[in-house]
Each structure stands twice: as C-alpha cells, then as structure tokens.
C-alpha cells in the first residue's frame, strides 16, 4: 500500500512521516508536491507537521489554498483515509475538512515534550489497532495546539464520538495540569463524521523507534496498515476505506 506525504513550502516533518512509512513500516511512500492536483494513487494521505507557508498569519491559513488540497478533499470525499499531524491538523481545520480552530497554547509558548494520551475511539483507520482507554506516550511540538470549537460543535463532536485522543495524566485521567495547551475537553485528536479524516496534534512519527525513546506512535501507523490491508483483502468498497484511483 502507498502512503502519500504532502509537502507544502514550509513543511518540516515531511521526511519524518515518509521515513516512518517507508523505513520503519516498510510501505510504499511518495511525496505529493503542493502544486500537484492529484494524490498519485496513494492509499492514505498524510499532511505532515511544519509551518506551511511560514504560518505567519494563522497556522494552516494559506496552505488550504494549495492545489493539492483540492485533490486531498476529493480523496477524502471518496472515503480515503487522511491523517493531519500537527500543522497538518491545523490545515485540515482551516480547510474545513475538520471542525474547529486552533488558538495559541495557554502558556503562550511553543511546547515540545512527551504527553500522555488516552485513546477514546478505535473506529477510525488510524486507531483501529489500539484499545479504547489505552494510554499512549507520544511527543508534541507546537505553539498553537489549543483546540477550540464553539460549544455546539464540541457537543456534536462528543455526541458523534469524533474525539479520538485526549490529553491525560499517565494514568489516563483528565487533569488540567497534564493538558499542555489548554484544548477544550483536553482534545488532542478528532475525526470527521465519516471517520476517515483524522487530525492530531501529537507526532506519532516521533515515537516509532526504540532509539527515539518510545514506540507508542507505532499504533497509529499499525492501525492504518492493518485497516488498509484488511480492506484490500476483503476488497471492500470505498465506503469503508477508499482507494484513490
């Protein structure tokens, strides 16, 4: 199966996502240049972390106009799995593929550290291999990861079970002290209603190899590999997990 990793000018975790897919998980991977208008037959698209177009105005604000985003939207509309990591999540929000917006971290500072995350839902292609309630230790690195949505939207997200990961303490309890950025509801990751588009602030690609001090991020990649593989073997129709081409 093939991972498509988008490169926006200013992306800086593109190589990391590519490396994880290709070298750590042994999958095909290809870069998708932001000026492209198709996803080149990718089975899953990753919008990586970074500072697309400098992020001077608002994170993700300019990237959503890139030609590739039309293709990503079409891919998502066909049910294709899309993962936005960090800046990728911010871009998905700005592009309207996910609801809500990001504010500055509550401490107003960029924050790079390991955090604890509780898996809320396993019915997305990116968490299928996890257990509900499982606590993961994965790094974050962002200055604007304070997830915000109007109360109605948050209610709807909760009702539809679209919250995928929350910041917690090491025991999996929600606790303001362990919420690194002030996100409403300690939300670290959400999906769309169709559940194929997922955005997350933590960086799973930074936690896939023992040498990097943790491997909990593997679950995210293992989930998508497993999901796509079973979709392939069952020859499922795009309604579950779309093939792009």
């Amino acid at each position, binding site marked *: 199966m093939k991972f498509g990793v988008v490169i926006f000018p200013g992306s800086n975790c593109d190589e990391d996502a590519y490396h994880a897919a290709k070298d750590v998980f042994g999958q095909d991977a290809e870069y998708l240049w932001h000026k492209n208008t198709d996803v080149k037959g990718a089975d899953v698209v990753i919008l990586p972390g970074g500072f697309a177009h400098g992020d001077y*105005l*608002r994170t993700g*604000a*300019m990237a959503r106009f890139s030609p590739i985003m039309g293709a990503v939207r079409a891919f998502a509309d066909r049910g294709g799995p899309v993962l936005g990591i960090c800046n990728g999540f911010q871009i998905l*929000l*700005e592009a309207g593929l996910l*609801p*809500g*917006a990001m*504010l*500055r*971290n*509550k401490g*107003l500072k960029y924050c790079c550290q390991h955090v604890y995350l509780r898996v809320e839902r396993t019915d997305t292609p990116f968490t299928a291999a996890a257990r509900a309630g499982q606590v993961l230790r994965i790094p974050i690195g962002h200055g604007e990861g*304070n997830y*915000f*949505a*109007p109360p109605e939207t948050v209610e709807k997200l909760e009702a539809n079970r679209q919250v995928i990961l929350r910041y917690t303490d090491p025991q999996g309890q929600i606790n303001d002290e362990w919420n690194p950025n*002030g996100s409403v509801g300690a939300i670290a990751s959400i999906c769309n209603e169709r559940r194929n588009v997922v955005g997350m602030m933590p960086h799973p690609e930074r936690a896939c190899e023992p040498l990097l001090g943790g491997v909990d991020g593997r679950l995210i990649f293992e989930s998508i590999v497993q999901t796509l593989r079973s979709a392939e073997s069952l020859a499922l129709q795009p309604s579950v997990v779309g093939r792009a081409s």
Partner: protein
Amino acid sequence: MRARVFVTLKPSVFDPQGRTIADALQSLGYDGVADVRQGKYFELDLATTEAARAKALAAEVADKLLANPVIETYRIEVD
C-alpha cells in the same frame, strides 16, 4: 487606497494573549486596565481609488484569508 482590517477573536473565545497582558499590567500596578483583548491589524495597499470598491475588496480578502470565521470577526476602515 488604503484599507485597514482589524481582526479580533470573537467575544466568546478565550484570548490567552490578551489575558496574559491584562494580568501582567495588573501585577505592574495598572489597576485601571480592566481587560485587554489582542487582535491583528492589517494595512492593505489597494490599487483602486474608489472607497466602495476598496471596502468590498478588503472584505473579500478578510473573508477568504485574513480572518477565521470560527474564532474571529473583523472590521474594515478605508481612507
């Protein structure tokens, strides 16, 4: 013409930067400052010389790029 666009967080959205400034001012003894809200300010140099056209253009640009309607509102002045 020049259009000026002010983008602010909606009143319902918590403004951590404004809050921090307000706290800092209070600790510096500025009790007279009850609250601070921080926003962004843009000056656009526009090719047009018609105020109405300028305003419309600025609004379009603000809608499209400068403000995020989920959290922000904006105001435009033209001179």
